[in-house]
Every structure is written in structure tokens, then in C-alpha cells.
């Protein structure tokens, strides 16, 4: 990019209200080609990346905001959003005493170790505990196996061939309104490549990524599992994530080649808004996996407890013969939260199989919808889907909705669908009380029992934390 242009943009700093202080660097509100140039330049991206972004921007301009989901919110003004914030440092505090007590309380309930609490809350941590050394050891182990695990920004610079080949190959730029927006302005995210025949020696999570910065509101992740490889990736953490950005629109793309397997687990706990429904993050995510090769497998597991509005459908395209797609989800809504989540399984190859287990939990005045599409293309001979969609209601002011869609162009395919709705009623709670459990413990016990099948799919450590998280997010929603 030309220096002229930078000067041009930066030169208008005052006019457009550039804010620049020690901790952060912001750009003016709104989206324009200039802004995209600015972002790409800031990230020192190659020309092809800039062009890719600009093309996405043009496409986005021609698209309309989707209206079909079962969520309601005032229209988003895309010119009111700031599209670039340099990796924002959290304010550094001197001790845990300076941290919001409510946040600390939650940490304690989650059982997060003290050192980690400090790190999450932005308290300066002793040099000894600095996680850099942990990360370095971790990276060394990965390098020995040839696994690439870096930020997307680094990957664009260091592995341009891989990025160019796969970026947008699963979620095309024009896939939907928010995918197009993300493609134009994405900030950062993770990049993973697992070479042929390699079983990734550990669970990958951003925690172990060097230079894991606050990735901002437009996260972009790309994971490629080459033939016969295996990788398990963890996104998010159970600690509450507070963020000033109201809109989050991430894109995640997974590619599994023949005989490869990708397991992608998410715990989403963004700020859900307060008890009266004020504030909270809008989380509009596009996640899709491509089972490219024969006998490949992609499995999504998600525990969604945060955000004011969640709109998310991790999907699998089953292209390879005998490939397998799985979706395990627990979505909790309380207070005024709204969630519209589900999956799309597209069967293209022969003998492909998909399995959907969705567990919605609604409390308070919240609305929880499952939306799922299972599609069998004409060549998907003898393919099968199993779907189970359960709803659990706590109280009588919340709502649960299920929208299962089936499109089949092949008579040899079979679907099995089960759905249940249950309620944690007074009589069940009283029964538990009578056995010595207070109402909060009772809800935790019931909810964890209900969500067990999904939680069991999470890596062990995560599962224990997620259990506690479910209980915490429903605290105060009964009685």
C-alpha cells in the first residue's frame, strides 16, 4: 500500500476523530474502502489479501441484513461501528483487590486458579508465572510434528499459499451478510494446519498461541487437517468475557481431508446483558466444516451461555464418501437473552452420516430456538441423519422453539428425529429441596444431567468447567 494513502488516512485523523492514547489506537467509525486499506496496511498484509477484502466489501454492499431468524433487536448501524482497534491491552491492575468483585466471585465459583484469575482480570503476573515459557514449550512440541498453529495475521505472512488456497473455500465471501462483512474487515484469529498422518499431540487453544491478542470483534479462524490427521481445537473459555464491542461476527472454516478428523469445541460466555436486558453482545457467527475427503469427520461441540443475542449454525458439508458430521450443543438463555442456533448438515457423498444433539435451556424471559437443516443431495446414497432436539424450560415466561428442516433428493437416505420438551417445575424442585439440596444446587444437578450427553464430548478439563458454568449462568433464575 502506498505511503500516500496511509498519510491520507492518518492525515485526516482529526477530522474523523482518530483517537490515540497509550493503550489503544482506534480508527474513525464507519466502513469504507479507506478503512479496509487502513486495516490491511496496519496488519502489513500482502496485496492479494487487500484485494480479497475489498472484493468482499463490494459484495457486502450489495447484500441485505438477514431477517429470518427468530431473534429481535434494533437494526445495527454499520456506520456506527469502529472497525479497527489495535490490540487493546486490558488495564493492568496491581492486585486482585482492584478487580470487580462480581467477576472475582464468578472466577471463584468456576474454580479458576488464582494465577489464572489474575491473568484473566488483567492483573500483572509475576515473571515466573508468565505464560510465555509455557507457550514456547508448547510450540516446540507442535513444531516437532510439523503442526502450524499461529495467528491468522502471521499465517497470512508466513504461509500465504495455504491461506490463499483455503480462505473462503468453505464459507464463501458471499455466503451471508455477516460472512461478507467479516471477510472485508476481519481482525485476527487462529490458523491451524496439521500435516498428513499427524495426530496433533495436544488440544489446541488460543491460550497456547504465541501473541494471542484480543482478536476483536471480527474473528477469523481456519483449520486444515490434511489426510489421516487429527486435531482437537478449543475456542473460548468459561471465564466471563466482557467486551465493549456490541457486535461480534466471526467466521470459522474447517477442512478435513480423507480420513482426517477435526474436533472443534466452543464455550461461549460473552456478556449477556444485565437482568433487565440492557447491553450485551450480539454474536453472529458463521462456522462451517468441509469433510472434503472420504471417511473424514468433523465434530462441533458448543456450550453457549453468553451474549444477548446468539445467531449461529455450525455446519458440516459431507462431501467425501462415508464422511461423518456431528453437532452437539447446549444453549442456555436466561433473563432477556435470545439464541437462535442449530446446524446444517449437507450430505453430498455416499454413505455419509450426521448426528445432531441439541439441548436448549431457557429461563427467565428468554427465547431459545433450534434451527436445523438436513439436506441429502441426489448422489448421497444410503446416507443417514439422527437428530435429537430437546428443550428444557425453567419457569413459565421463557420460550423454546424448534425448526427442523429436511430436504431430500435421494430416496435411499434415512432420518431419525426425536424431540422432547421438559420443564423444571415446582414439584421437581421441591423434591430436591426435600432431599437437602437448595434450589440452585437442584437446578445445577438437573441441568447438568440434561446436558450430559453434550458435555461428555468436551475435553475432560473443559467439561468440568462447563458444568459449573451452566449452573452459574442460571443462578437466580428460579424462585
Amino acid at each position, binding site marked *: 500500500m502506498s505511503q500516500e494513502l496511509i498519510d491520507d488516512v492518518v492525515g485526516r485523523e482529526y477530522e474523523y476523530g482518530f483517537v490515540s492514547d497509550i493503550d489503544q489506537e482506534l480508527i474513525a467509525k464507519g466502513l469504507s474502502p479507506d478503512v479496509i486499506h487502513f486495516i490491511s496496511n496496519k496488519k502489513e498484509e500482502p496485496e492479494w489479501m487487500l484485494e480479497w477484502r475489498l472484493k468482499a466489501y463490494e459484495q457486502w454492499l450489495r447484500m441485505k441484513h438477514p431477517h429470518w431468524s427468530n431473534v429481535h433487536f434494533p437494526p445495527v448501524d454499520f456506520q456506527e461501528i469502529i472497525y479497527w482497534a489495535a490490540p487493546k491491552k486490558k488495564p493492568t491492575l496491581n492486585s486482585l483487590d482492584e478487580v470487580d468483585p462480581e467477576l472475582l466471585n464468578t472466577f471463584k465459583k468456576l474454580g479458576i486458579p488464582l494465577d489464572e484469575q489474575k491473568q484473566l482480570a488483567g492483573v500483572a503476573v509475576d515473571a515466573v508465572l508468565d505464560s510465555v515459557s509455557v507457550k514456547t514449550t508448547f510450540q516446540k512440541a507442535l513444531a516437532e510434528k510439523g503442526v502450524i498453529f499461529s495467528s491468522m495475521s502471521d499465517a497470512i505472512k508466513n504461509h500465504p499459499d495455504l491461506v490463499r488456497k483455503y480462505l473462503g473455500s468453505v464459507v464463501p465471501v458471499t455466503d451471508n451478510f455477516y460472512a461478507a462483512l467479516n471477510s472485508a474487515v476481519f481482525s485476527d484469529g487462529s490458523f491451524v494446519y496439521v500435516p498428513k498422518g499427524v495426530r496433533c499431540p495436544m488440544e489446541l487453544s488460543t491460550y497456547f498461541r504465541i501473541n494471542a491478542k484480543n482478536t476483536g470483534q471480527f474473528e477469523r479462524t481456519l483449520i486444515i487437517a490434511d489426510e489421516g490427521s487429527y486435531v482437537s481445537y478449543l475456542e473460548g473459555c468459561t471465564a466471563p468475557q466482557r467486551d465493549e464491542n456490541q457486535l461480534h461476527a466471526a467466521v470459522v472454516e474447517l477442512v478435513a481431508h480423507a480420513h482426517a478428523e477435526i474436533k472443534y469445541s466452543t464455550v461461549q460466555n460473552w456478556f449477556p446483558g444485565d437482568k433487565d436486558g440492557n447491553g450485551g453482545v450480539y454474536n453472529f457467527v458463521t462456522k462451517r466444516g468441509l469433510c472434503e475427503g472420504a471417511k473424514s469427520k468433523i465434530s462441533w461441540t458448543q456450550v453457549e451461555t453468553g451474549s444477548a443475542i446468539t445467531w449461529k449454525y455450525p455446519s458440516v458439508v459431507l462431501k467425501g464418501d462415508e464422511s461423518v458430521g456431528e453437532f452437539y450443543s447446549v444453549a442456555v438463555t436466561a433473563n432477556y437473552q435470545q439464541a437462535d442456533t442449530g446446524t446444517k448438515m449437507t450430505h453430498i457423498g455416499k454413505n455419509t452420516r450426521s448426528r445432531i444433539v441439541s439441548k436448549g435451556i431457557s429461563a427467565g424471559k428468554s427465547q431459545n430456538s433450534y434451527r436445523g437443516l438436513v439436506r441429502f443431495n441426489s448422489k448421497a446414497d444410503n446416507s443417514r441423519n439422527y437428530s435429537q432436539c430437546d428443550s428444557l424450560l425453567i419457569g413459565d415466561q421463557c420460550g423454546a422453539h424448534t425448526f427442523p428442516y429436511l430436504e431430500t433428493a435421494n430416496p435411499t437416505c434415512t432420518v431419525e428425529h426425536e424431540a422432547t420438551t421438559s420443564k423444571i417445575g415446582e414439584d421437581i424442585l421441591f423434591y430436591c429441596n*426435600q432431599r437437602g439440596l437448595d434450589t440452585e444446587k437442584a437446578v445445577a*444437578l438437573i441441568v447438568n444431567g440434561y446436558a450430559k450427553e453434550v458435555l461428555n464430548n468436551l475435553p475432560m478439563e473443559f467439561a468440568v468447567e462447563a458444568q459449573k458454568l451452566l449452573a452459574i449462568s442460571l443462578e437466580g433464575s428460579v424462585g
Partner: protein
Amino acid sequence: MKPLLIIDQLRAGIEGREILKGISLTVNPGEVHAIMGPNGSGKSTLASVLSGRSEYEVISGSVTYNGEDLLEKAPEERAQAGVFQAFQYPVEIPGVSTANFVRTSLNAIRAARGEEPLDPSAFLMRMKERMALVELDPSFLQRSLNEGFSGGEKKRNEIFQMAMLEPTLAILDETDSGLDIDALRIVANGVNALRTPNNAMVVITHYQRLLNYIVPDVVHVLMDGQLVLSGNKDLALELEAKGYDWLRNDGVVA
């Protein structure tokens, strides 16, 4: 000997309707009291008020348990203090295994008393032993609580839980209803095995039959929200023979 439970002139109801109209009853440690009475007379309501179900409001009177005011305690606090109710209609909890439910319950009660959780092997031993007491197959431990259990199995599961929690005061609400003869004997044997000089039981039943197995110290008749007559175990036989009408006509009920 200090009484375990003193109910004094208890009046309680729901939605402005009075159901219990002045009940007084004293239960000493080691005793078994049977409460009989026609449908709708308030037997389950009495059980619910004692265990603290919030829909029922106490209008007046008092309940003292172990020298403390029972009515001011939350339901879970009553349970932690050793009050147990075997329900007439036990609920089903999908996804929560019987073993997990009982372990969570027992440990919550122990925690409230400042005791450590029972270690897993001791817990497992105790579960197997108490399962055998009510002749339930250990496979029930892995099944969701009461889900798909037959009526009789649910009742046996109530007694199993009682055996696990070792309450000081157990209120059994029609635990014998819907049981076949064998199950009745099994439940009664279970209950008898748990009798100690320190705990007490209030057994609500419609059938004298049960009282052949669980021999009560006192039998009470509850009619229209009042205890109208008390006697020894022979009273149950008399009720079986004569029904309740004579009590009404007798003018015992004012």
C-alpha cells in the same frame, strides 16, 4: 425423654382455604405414628407443611422439631436437620442417575452438618447394602431417577433414599399404596430395619394391612383437617371393619 416433634394447634391451608384445622400431635424418639383418614382429609397437606412446601401457608399454631422452630426453616434446611418425606407421588428426573442424585443429596446434607463427603468406596458399599434392603436391583442406580420406574419401584426407591439418608424424622405418605403383597413386605422390612430408639416415623396409610408389618405405637384418624381420634394399633383394625362414617355420625367431629 424430650419429644422429637411437637405440633401444636396447627392451622394451614392454600389459597385462602383452610385444610388443616388445628392439629396437635407429639412424637417421641423411637415411636411410629400412623395417620389414617379418608381421601382429601389433609394427610398429604400435613406432610407437605412439615417438609416446608411453600404453596401451603401456615395460618397459626407451631411446630417444634428437636427443640427448634421447624416452620421458619427452608425445606432444604429441614432435610439437613433430618426430616425426610417419602412422597405419595415421587417425581422423575431425566438425565440424573439415582446414584448421582442420592450422592448429591447425601453430601449436601453432610456438608450442612459440617461433615466431609462420604468417600466413594464407602458410599458405593452403603448404596449396595441399602439397595439390597429394599430388594432393588443395583442396575437401578444407573438409571435416571424414577424415570420409567414402575409405581412399586418408585416407592421402593423412596425407602432406599430414606435408608441412605438415615433421617431422624421420616414421614411416609402412602408408601404402601399401589404395592403388591411382596413389595409391601419388602418396604415394611426396610422401614423396620431403619427403626432406632433415636428416630421416629409418621406413616400415612389407608390400609391396616401395612400396620401388620410396621407396628405403630399410636394410630390417629384425620378427618376434615382435624385429628379426631387416637388409639393403639387395634384402632386400625376397627377402622378397617367399620370405615370412617361412624366417626362422623358419632359426633366426634364437631
